[in-house]
């Protein structure tokens, strides 16, 4: 179908506006992160970094001592995003591995094994999707506190480690659509279900498992309220929480926008890398997860 010239102009104008509005805030963040702190104030509208530097990253990652930090335009206080970056990676990796594995195992049983209350238990899992997070948050906080797990990795990871209703749902759908023949042949050969799960079902569902793992990782990485409640201390503080705290500091001086944007850039990077590598799967999964 051939479209008129005006329709094509309209289309490209729309695409340009969408792309600009979406991407510009990211560009402005990176531009600010690469600008010498005082130049952020003296040249607030310069499109390119008016005084290019990577000093902000060195400062917020705690790679330089206090004196150098002041020379780089910082306040001289030690900020250690390196630790926060590590914490975010550890917690998100823990949750991703645990949740993906245990949810896949449960999903396999729901999809393939015959046992009493199969549908009821699965339906029960799904019903949890309707409960607002805040309802569970307070009692879960109290539980973690009672266990003495406040400010520990296991405390932050525990509620999401063993399952999420969404992950079980996602993998069950996948297993239900997977061809059974190979597994049935293996059963006839006398292979046990556990072996079939690990040697046939898991390898065959690698695509779905990777997609789920990416989604779970990004979700854990982005979480704010739960790690804010149970992981305040610096040794386990996650990047999102640290960025919130960082913003509230420095009220006596001018805000350290360059440092804040350097920290923000650090929080953007891992997701960006994952998305560039596996973005297509994430996009395709949205059509799938949208309609049950």
């Amino acid at each position, binding site marked *: 179908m051939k479209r008129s010239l005006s329709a094509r102009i309209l289309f490209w104008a729309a695409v340009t506006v969408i792309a600009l509005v979406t991407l510009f805030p990211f560009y402005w963040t990176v531009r600010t992160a690469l600008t010498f702190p005082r130049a952020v104030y003296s040249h607030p509208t310069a499109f390119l970094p008016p005084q290019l530097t990577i000093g902000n990253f060195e400062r917020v990652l705690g790679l330089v001592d206090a004196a150098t930090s002041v020379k780089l335009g910082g306040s001289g206080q030690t900020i250690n995003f390196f630790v926060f970056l590590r914490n975010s990676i550890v917690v998100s990796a823990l949750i991703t591995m645990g949740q993906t594995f245990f949810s896949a195992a449960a999903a396999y049983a729901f999809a393939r094994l015959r046992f*009493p209350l199969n549908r009821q238990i699965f339906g029960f899992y799904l019903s949890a999707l309707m409960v607002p997070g805040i309802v569970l948050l307070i009692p879960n906080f109290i539980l973690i506190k009672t266990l003495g797990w406040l400010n520990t990795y296991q405390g932050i990871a525990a509620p999401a480690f063993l*399952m999420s209703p969404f992950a079980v749902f996602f993998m069950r759908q996948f297993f239900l659509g997977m061809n059974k023949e190979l597994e049935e042949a293996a059963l006839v050969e006398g292979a046990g279900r556990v072996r079939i799960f690990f040697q046939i079902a898991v390898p065959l569902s690698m695509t779905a498992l990777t997609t789920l793992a990416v989604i779970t990782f990004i979700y854990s990485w*982005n*979480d704010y309220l739960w790690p804010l409640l149970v992981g305040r201390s610096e040794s386990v503080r996650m990047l999102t929480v640290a*960025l919130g705290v960082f*913003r509230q500091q420095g009220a006596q001086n001018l805000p350290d926008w360059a440092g804040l944007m350097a920290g923000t850039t650090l929080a953007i990077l891992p997701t960006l890398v994952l998305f560039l590598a596996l973005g297509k799967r994430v996009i395709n999964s949205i059509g799938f997860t949208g309609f049950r």
Partner: protein
Amino acid sequence: MRKARVNARSREIGLALLFILPSLAGFLVFFVAPAARGLYISFTDWNLLTQPKPVGLANYAALLSDQDFWNALKVTVLYVLWNIPLQTVLAIAVALVMSAAAHSSLLKGVILLPWLMPNVVVALLWVWLLDPTIGLINVAVRAFGGPLLPFLSSPSTALPTIAGINIWRYLGYTALLVFAGLQTIPTDVYEAARIDGSNGRQTFWRITLPLLRPVLAFVIVTSVLGSFQIFDTVAVTTKGGPINATKVFNYMIYQQAFERFQMGYATAVSMVLFLILVGVGLLQMKLLRAGEVET
């Protein structure tokens, strides 16, 4: 023979238990138990230091005469109204642009980016761009002789600004859902409309939109329920201010529980929020299904 079958059957049950047990433990400990415990706590007076003291319905009664509660209800509903209609209309527009593109993968990837970022990051990007003194937008507006735009720092503009920030974050995701819905409309329907002489606008109002209805219903119900539970953006940008103008439900509950340590009262409010969400969800599904054409 029969015994063997019974054995195989019970072995399968044992196996299923093995596969399910970790997830079931997680579900019971971190979903079922806290829901029940939350309900119990909402009937007590508890500051975390002493034992919870049962007070019956006192928390729920107190809530009815609490100005903060009614403010939270008003602010949250207003927020949803600022957020959802505009977001849905824009998402439909963007989805139509996507379906007009020959290769939309890059466009999809770009527009999904904000949704993949932490709320905290999204909030900070905009706090910086909207800063009254040296934020790009205000400096640029001033350069052209415009007025100071207070955005997050004025009670009248803070809530719509937060809604705008979240529209920016969720637009791509919502548009992708609508786009997936557009793909389910068979092309011969459009073809038939074209042959009958229908122009672009007529086709959109009489064919695309009605056929998109189930997808739109799903998108609107889920995004309204999500919108009711906004927290992160408020916590990072305004902390409920200025003068309570953005103190939505979740932020109010957070303050009651973790700044004033009124666990009983906070959980009672969370239970009421839960009921409101159930009500809103049911109402929406009824409204969106009303007058549905049987096909």
